[in-house]
């Protein structure tokens, strides 16, 4: 069964450093997403991406965040200057059709720890 692949599985970084979280969505999918889950809290929408541009973003997704699909297969989330409160599980997701019928396919997540 096709998978969404995320790397690394765990990243530790110092506060103020830049991090790039990488995702390889399912190859024929058209819509891409980043979500995050702070420990003990709910899964929160960050951004959606379609047709090579951001289609929607939440208030969490401020100027420190950016997304890119540089080569048609990878989908990256960059945090320019990490803060302690950015520590969370970050989930990439993709869908080829209507999420209402098929849901998203999520990756296994990257645990980001900012120290």
């Amino acid at each position, binding site marked *: 069964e096709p998978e969404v692949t995320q790397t690394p599985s765990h990243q530790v970084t110092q506060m103020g450093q830049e991090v790039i979280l990488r995702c390889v969505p399912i190859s024929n999918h058209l819509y891409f997403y980043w979500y995050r889950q702070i420990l003990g809290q*709910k*899964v929160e*929408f960050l951004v959606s991406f379609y047709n090579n541009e951001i*289609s929607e973003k939440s208030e969490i997704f401020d100027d420190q965040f950016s997304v890119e699909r540089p080569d048609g297969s990878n989908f990256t989330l960059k945090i320019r200057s990490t803060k302690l409160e950015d520590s969370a599980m970050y989930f990439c*997701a993709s869908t080829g059709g209507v999420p*209402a019928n098929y*849901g*998203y396919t999520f990756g*296994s*997540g990257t645990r980001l720890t900012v120290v």
Partner: protein
Amino acid sequence: DQQVKQNSPSLSVQEGRISILNCDYTNSMFDYFLWYKKYPAEGPTFLISISSIKDKNEDGRFTVFLNKSAKHLSLHIVPSQPGDSAVYFCAALVKTSYDKVIFGPGTSLSVIP
């Protein structure tokens, strides 16, 4: 912003019995509701969805019921199996072009053998 609520953080059920997970929402504009299951160290997995124009959808052991007037939905799992032990997220979306899904806080289900 608590548009999707799951008021029970945890639930324990005996194997073979019915598990009922509840969810309430506040936004009457939601078009679809979804249930996801999540194991530790894995991403959420889509289980089942229901359109706001329906009141029931069934898929094997999983049935979702929607009561629009009460803004309430529930997921029934019958019979419950130990492998069903996971965190269950209720989620909802407004059918815009990009389908942003809003998740509830989750309910941790333990199925006891």
